[in-house]
């Protein structure tokens, strides 16, 4: 469905994504993990065409058509939607208006109203707050609204940039279960996360990103079993010294 070949993205002179290739099959969930500054968000923004004149090199194909260096508005119309990091809801529009804005590219009013109700069943709290300004919602509610809004365009592929950012564990669980439901409805998902455990439990395949490159790829099960991933992303410490503390720092083997 999505086929990325060797893309490189620059912010002026800084190369944030250094040759990433990624193939996403239809109806899959792909998780991209990595530390801060690894280039995960930049990768998603590059796919969405949000960084002007980028990718510098490489191609992005969606459903067989090249979408690299196209306008964001155009890319959205082809069926990709994006839940940006930090929610980015329209603060001075009501919840309902936010959802309507999400359906901007669609015409059929009845279907749109139907989908708004679907979003309310996914997130009942949004239904309760439908006539409230989005800016007055709590962080978790805003995240739900951002996801709901991204659903309104009926996307084939949905990119989520750190949906768990700044949310309590309970809310994170709720958000992830909704992502699962959305996936079950036939939407392909790419998920960028810091919360590796949650992300891998959901995803089919995972990629570990560091310094703008993919350093490790595999199915979620493979990644969960990987020694390095366990130590550096899942927080499982495999070996301790006999005195009960570790005196050396383990090095990642992929460097």
């Amino acid at each position: 469905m999505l086929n990325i070949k060797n893309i490189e993205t620059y912010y002026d002179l800084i190369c944030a994504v250094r040759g990433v290739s990624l193939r996403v099959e239809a109806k899959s969930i792909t998780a991209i993990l990595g530390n801060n500054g690894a280039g995960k968000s930049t990768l998603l923004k590059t796919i969405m065409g949000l960084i002007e004149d980028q990718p510098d090199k490489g191609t992005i194909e969606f459903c067989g058509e090249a979408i690299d260096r196209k306008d964001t508005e155009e890319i959205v119309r082809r069926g990709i939607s994006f839940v940006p990091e930090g929610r980015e809801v329209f603060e001075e529009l009501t919840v309902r208006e936010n959802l309507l804005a999400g359906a901007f590219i669609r015409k059929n009013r009845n279907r749109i109203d139907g989908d708004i109700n679907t979003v309310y069943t996914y997130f009942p709290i949004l239904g309760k707050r439908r006539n409230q300004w989005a800016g007055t919602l709590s962080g978790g509610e805003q995240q739900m609204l951002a996801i709901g809004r991204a659903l309104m365009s009926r996307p084939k592929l949905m990119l989520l940039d750190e949906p768990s950012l700044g949310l309590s564990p309970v809310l994170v669980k709720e958000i992830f279960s909704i992502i699962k439901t959305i996936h079950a409805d036939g939407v392909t998902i790419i998920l960028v996360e810091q919360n590796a455990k949650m992300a891998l439990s959901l995803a089919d395949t995972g990629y570990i990103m560091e310094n703008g490159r993919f350093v490790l790829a595999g199915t979620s099960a493979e990644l969960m079993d990987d020694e390095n991933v366990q130590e550096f992303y899942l927080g499982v410490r495999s070996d301790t010294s006999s005195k009960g503390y570790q005196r050396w720092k383990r090095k990642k083997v992929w460097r």
Partner: protein
Amino acid sequence: MIDFIQTIVSGIAAGSSYALMGLAMVLIYKTSEVPNFAQGELALAASFFAYMIMESFGLSFFLALPCALSFAFLLGCFLEFLVLRRAKTPNILSMIVITIGLEMILLGLVSWKFGADQKTMPFPISPYDSMAIGNIFISTLELVTVFVVLAIMAALYLLLRFSKMGLAMKATQQNTMAARLMGIRANRVLNLTWGLSSVVGAIAGLLIAPTLMHPYMMWDPLLKGFAAAVMGGMTSLPGAVSGAFLLGIIENIFGTYISIEFKAVVAFAIIVIILCIKPSGLFARHYVKKV
């Protein structure tokens, strides 16, 4: 008592042309957060365009009106596309400076083409006609202006509140990046807004032109309109209109009862006071971001 009511009515009449300019500025401000100082000169250009086609081609006013309004629309779109969009890494301040530059260019062009002397615009309603309601007198032109203002305000309000275009405009203003992610063509929205607000401004120009027509005719309405819009909170259409009426009334009362010399200054004194007491404007319903 009659005197007092008369003063208020004249104030509302004077305020209505400020209101139109205020509406036009609020419209652009709502989508791009830039106060457009070229607004007055856009209206000036459209009025002189109407004057030109009526004088040179002998068109009737009712034919010239749609021509002038379409001219205003195209001019607005054209300037946005040609000048403002070209700005690299635009910030609000540089955009404001650009609009001031545009204002001077347009003013220069109009003065060069038509000269600085007073013209008379052929208009179906004579500015000297007036109507009496009881003992209150109001000139017919002013009465028409008041109704036009209210109609335009209502139309714009409906547009912003209920139409898809209105939603796109509000979304673009609040978060351009997110709006683009919704598939809203932000550039096109901005372009249309410039066209639309230029039309609203042009209507103001055409209603002022019968009484006063020379290259500097829009300065006073523009500044007062801007002041009124600031008073109304800069993002509220009814706010801009009521601000303008209020401004007109206060100005007139001050001129009648206190000092006619300082009439023009009083508007700005009020702005300063209001901005000190309530910086977000009298009618703003602006959500303040919690950090």
